């Protein structure tokens, strides 16, 4: 049925108005701003491509890009296999056990990054925190490890906190996908003599490929937007951490855009991040299509 008259447009107008106000206008403004140096919205000076030039010459930006990329790689290579492993474990258990553990593993995600950051900053306290004490008991070392002030340990600390936060979240996606896999295919493979690994690799994983691609893309995007967790863990150094070891792209953007009020440089960083995420996502989607073919 096709409606005629102004009514459909009237219903659409709030959405269109809000989208224009909060998406299109800021989007265009962000493009323009990237070519200005600003002191907030009050005063600005046209600088052409200087913001981008400054970024690409700034050692802090290089550190932020490197740290964020390392975090994204670790997220994909460690976090997702762990999430998949947990999902496989739970998939084989009874529904009641599955529900309980699903809630347990998912629950860290309910409290948010800030609370997890505060919690882990206590857990990492040298000498007195649970993690240094646990390491001392188990390995007879690590009691005085400075997880949040030693540049060598800052990224591992962020990764550990993020694993606790997000493994359960991604596990839920994988678990849901596993439950849609055709059991008869797996059964047939087993009858044909396939090992558990072969069944997983050749039957289960391809059957849930779309979910895996989605989770990988979302994880990479999420990783490049990492902000609250390192900022809370490293709050005393503006989220930079010793030797810039905890500096991420969004922390860099936040510092330059909002702490100093240079929204122009902030916009330029935003566009670089958007470009990186867009490129990586495109590659992933292409790669997924190739493997499908």
């Amino acid at each position, binding site marked *: 049925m096709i*409606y005629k008259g102004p*009514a459909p447009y009237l*219903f659409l107008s709030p959405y269109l108005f809000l989208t224009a106000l909060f998406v299109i206008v800021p989007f265009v403004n962000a493009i323009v701003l990237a070519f200005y*140096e*600003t*002191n*907030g*919205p*009050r*005063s*600005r*000076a046209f*600088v052409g491509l200087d913001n981008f030039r*400054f970024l690409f*010459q*700034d*050692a*802090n930006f290089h550190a932020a890009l490197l740290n964020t990329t390392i975090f994204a790689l670790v997220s994909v290579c460690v976090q997702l296999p762990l999430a998949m492993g947990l999902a496989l474990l739970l998939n084989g258990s009874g529904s009641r056990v599955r529900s309980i553990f699903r809630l347990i593993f998912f629950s860290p995600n309910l409290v948010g990054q800030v609370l997890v950051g505060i919690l882990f900053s206590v857990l990492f*306290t*040298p*000498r*007195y*925190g649970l993690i240094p004490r646990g390491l001392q008991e188990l390995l*007879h070392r690590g*009691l*005085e490890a*400075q997880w949040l*002030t*030693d*540049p060598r340990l800052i990224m591992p600390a962020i990764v550990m906190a993020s694993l606790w936060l997000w493994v359960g979240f991604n596990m839920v996606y994988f678990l849901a996908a596993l439950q849609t896999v055709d059991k008869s295919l797996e059964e047939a493979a087993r009858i044909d003599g396939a090992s558990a690994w072969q069944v997983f690799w050749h039957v289960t994983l391809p059957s849930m490929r779309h979910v895996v691609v989605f989770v990988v893309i979302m994880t990479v995007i999420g990783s490049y937007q990492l902000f609250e967790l390192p900022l809370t863990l490293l709050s*005393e*150094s*503006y989220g*930079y*951490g*010793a*030797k*810039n070891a905890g500096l991420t792209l969004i922390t860099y953007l936040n*510092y330059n855009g*909002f*702490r*100093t*009020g*240079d929204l122009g*440089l902030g916009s330029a960083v935003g566009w670089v991040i958007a470009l990186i995420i867009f490129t990586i996502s495109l590659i992933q989607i292409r790669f997924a299509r190739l493997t499908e073919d």
Partner: protein
Amino acid sequence: MSLIDKYPYGKAPFALLVIAIVSVGLRIATARRHADRPDLVVVTHTDAHYAAYRKAIPRFEQEHGVKVQLQLVNWASLQARVQNAVLAGTETPDLAEMFESTLGTFTRGPAEDFGVMDLTDRLHRDGLYDRIVESRFSLWSARGRIYALPHDVHPLMLAYRTDLVAKLGIDVSQLDTWDKFVEVGQRITRDADGDKVLDHYMIDLRFDGAWSLDALMWQRGGQFFDAQGNVAFATEDTAELIRWYILQVHGPHKIAFDCGWGQSVGKAMTDGLVVFQWAPDWRSWVFEDEVPSLKGKMALMPLPAWKPGGRRTSVWGGTGLMIMKGTKNPELAWELAKFLYFDGRDQGQRFLATNIIPVLKDAWNLPELERPNPYWSNLPIGRMYAALAPETPAVYSSPVEAQARINLDLAYARSIDHFLKHGEAGLMEVIRANLAEGAAAVRRYADREHKLRVATR
């Protein structure tokens, strides 16, 4: 036929329409009328200040026949909100109390964009300038003008447990230079029980530099920026300090441990893990509040000097009261600022409530500052801090101050890498190079700010 059936676009749009109408109706019905804005709004970020001002403000209201609203806001939110309001030109409080190092965020770009009032002439006009410790104006100055009233001086001393010091055989009166301090520190920082874990450390020093490196740099006369705003931390003296600091925190004969912040500091003190803690006046009150079990066992001593007869203190922290340019009552705001910070009737009581000595030099004769403090082994800590206050070093502000702090710590951290691989061989050259690189990075940020200033003049 019901209304829902008569509606031509289906049930779901009808439900949405009803929800929209009900929501708007409820919003209008429950909207509270905004009370009239008081004559002045003042915002602070600390509980102690809030309590003190709440007590004092009714007297100001009565004396001036005005209404003042006092707000308590978390310091980080306060800075972000006020900064954003200033930049966006929206409503700001009339007066806002800020932490040190925040002035730079308000003094970027052309001077007419500053969201805070220039108080220089008023300070001179009312004879306050000469009554305040001069070094404290540096925190709140930009381009030669003063933009906030300093609240405090925050001289730095070392806190220690008298029983622990006696047990370890430390004669505190002999620790008048850092060389002697390190010598004693190397003697007591050891693993006496053979469990491969050190039993005591001499002092709490940040592993990543941060405030303890900054405070030591200021004690030696170093600065992030000079009075003209030029980057000034890449000096031979700072390089020497970084070398010294690396040895104390990472060296084979290290004497320092990073206790972190909050509860872990209290635990380290109660356990006797670290003998000396940093104690500016405000933190002496924090210890009283957070580690009450050590009452009567604690004492304070001036910092050891870098050279015999040298400066025995430094500075850590600072709060200032800014009058925002957006205020409609600048003179009344100035009167309130003076009343809150310098009214003689409250200075003594405020010291007793916070241990923070007043910034006014003539208030240091108050009897409350002479009073023995039972927590600190009955030492007259007010007098002790006041005696050091004139020596506190200046700390100059800059719009790129945070970058300077980040880059000093970066130079230190990079130098540690060299030390861990090669020891002291070539260390000074590496530190000098790292400092120069850090200073260049800060200058790049400063140049951007300068260009903006020129372009928008």
